[in-house]
């Protein structure tokens, strides 16, 4: 097989960095043999952000670091770790930026409550308009 020996700027790499020419980590692009574990890993990977990309999850990215993060997730799931624990480990290292699922906290409460508030406003608007109509 031809080795891809051409150094290339991967679309998702950060500027000013070339990339290594090493093959990706094992498990970066290979699935776990247990389908249930792979499903858990996949479900977690789509919620983790690629740190060197312009807005992609690690499940959707060709960047090397994304591959290494996928390998990390799969390794740990295979070792029996819970997805939540893996995510918390990454958040402890990179902050909430690394997860696409913002945790519910003081700063994000308005975000999560928004749909309910909007529905409530909607119902209020609708009821007011019906009531006026009837009268």
């Amino acid at each position, binding site marked *: 097989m031809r080795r891809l020996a051409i150094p290339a700027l991967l679309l998702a790499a950060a500027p000013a960095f*070339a990339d290594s020419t090493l093959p990706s980590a094992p498990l970066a692009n290979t699935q776990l043999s247990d389908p249930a574990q792979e499903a858990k890993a996949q479900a977690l990977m789509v919620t983790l952000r690629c740190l060197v990309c312009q807005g992609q999850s690690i499940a959707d990215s060709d960047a090397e670091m994304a591959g290494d993060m996928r390998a990390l997730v799969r390794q740990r799931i295979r070792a029996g770790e819970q997805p939540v624990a893996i995510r918390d480990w990454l958040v402890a290292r*990179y902050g909430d930026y690394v997860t696409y699922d913002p945790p519910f906290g003081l700063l994000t409460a308005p975000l999560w409550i928004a749909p309910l508030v909007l529905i409530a406003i909607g119902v209020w*608007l609708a009821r007011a308009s019906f009531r006026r109509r009837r009268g």
Partner: protein
Amino acid sequence: MRLWLPLAVFVAVLAIIAVALYRPADRTVYSAMVGKRVPDFTVPALLPGKPGLASARLADGKPKLLNIFASWCVPCAAEAPQLMALKAAGVPIEGVAIRDTPEAMRDFLARGGDPYAAIGDDKTSAVQLAIGSSGVPESFVIAGDGTILLQHVGDIRADDVPAILAKLEAAK
């Protein structure tokens, strides 16, 4: 009253956008481990004659500079003179090479000089992920007891050197 609600919402959205436009947010991803202990890790040696790196070595009582780099990384070559200057000032520098090969590393060190007391071989970015680094080059000032004091993202420029030296001094 209800009729002015859309305008009010619009003004709020505008305010958000205006603030974002005039105070652009820093897009750099910083490590959340600053202030915490260096996580445990061990990486083998990349070159014969140069030891690998274990996290215990970063907590041996002397403040150090941990440099995460790679031979294929262009800014890493640019910061080599600054690292040599820091080494000359007596700073112990431990290196972790990301996804690197011995031959390429030998060439890299021959070109820019070798400031490293140890170079660990990290082929899967394990150390990077463990310490909260998201690219190369990054440097961490680590206190004698293993606490991470400072993260410097990107190559070290000449005017960054005094700040790093000061941090290391304060850690002594």
